[in-house]
């Protein structure tokens, strides 16, 4: 079993954990935690691919951009969380079901 395959296996596991979290948790904060875990897994996949294909510098360059994006995305998510909390008084995403039909 090559090291690469093992790493990606664990990355898949990490991704599973993150998506599981997004699937089952009601709290928007925990949704964001799940989201963070998934994106960590994606970053690991990227850097691992860079490492094993001898493109590490390139991968790092991409990763830095990704981290900037992640920060802004998480900040936007938290901003939405706070706005939702202000309007609805809760941070429960399962309660948001007024739009239907």
């Amino acid at each position, binding site marked *: *079993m*090559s*090291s*690469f*395959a*093992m*790493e*990606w*296996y*664990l990355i*898949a*596991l*990490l991704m*599973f*954990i993150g998506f*599981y*979290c997004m699937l*089952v*948790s009601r*709290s928007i*904060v*925990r949704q964001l*935690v*799940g989201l963070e*875990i998934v994106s*960590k897994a994606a*970053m*690991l996949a990227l*850097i691992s691919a*860079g*490492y*094993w*294909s*001898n*493109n*590490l*510098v*390139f*991968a*790092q*360059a*991409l*990763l*830095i*951009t990704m*981290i*900037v994006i992640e*920060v*802004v995305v*998480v*900040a*936007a998510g*938290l*901003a*939405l*969380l*706070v706005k939702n*909390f202000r309007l609805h008084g*809760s*941070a429960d995403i399962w309660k948001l079901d007024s739009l239907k039909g």
Partner: protein
Amino acid sequence: MNDPRLVLFALTALFSIWAVMARSLLTSAIMLALVSVTVSLIFFDYGAPWAGVFELSVCAGLITVLFIGAVSLIRSEEEKHPESRARFYALPLAAAIFAIAGWFYLPPFFAEMAGWARPGTGGGTIGLALWDMRRQDLLGQVLMLAAGVFVIKSVFPRRTEK
């Protein structure tokens, strides 16, 4: 399993399970910071120090601060209505099922994929790579940061009248 990197990977998985299962949101946020730390260690181990430094400072630092801020804002309300824990206790079980089921399929799949790898030339420095090859991404970053500022301004406007 003697590869230290794999230990770090396993540690990351462990911390993330913990982050998901933690009863308190604050613990979740701290565990998430630990996940980031282990991920940055993995980066260092790969020989990607720039990514590691960024990860450590931005993800483990800035994002954790943001998280803790948001959590402390809503914590009082959250603790009044704790969510049902049963689904979270099922996580280790689900992860184990995934891990065992995946063990038979995923590593061979990834191993075959590794066989298709086309090694690049490597070389160059991070600065050159960013500036010469990824110049548009820098533009994208600027745009992203601008967007972030405007998002915050839009969601939390300065109220002049009320």
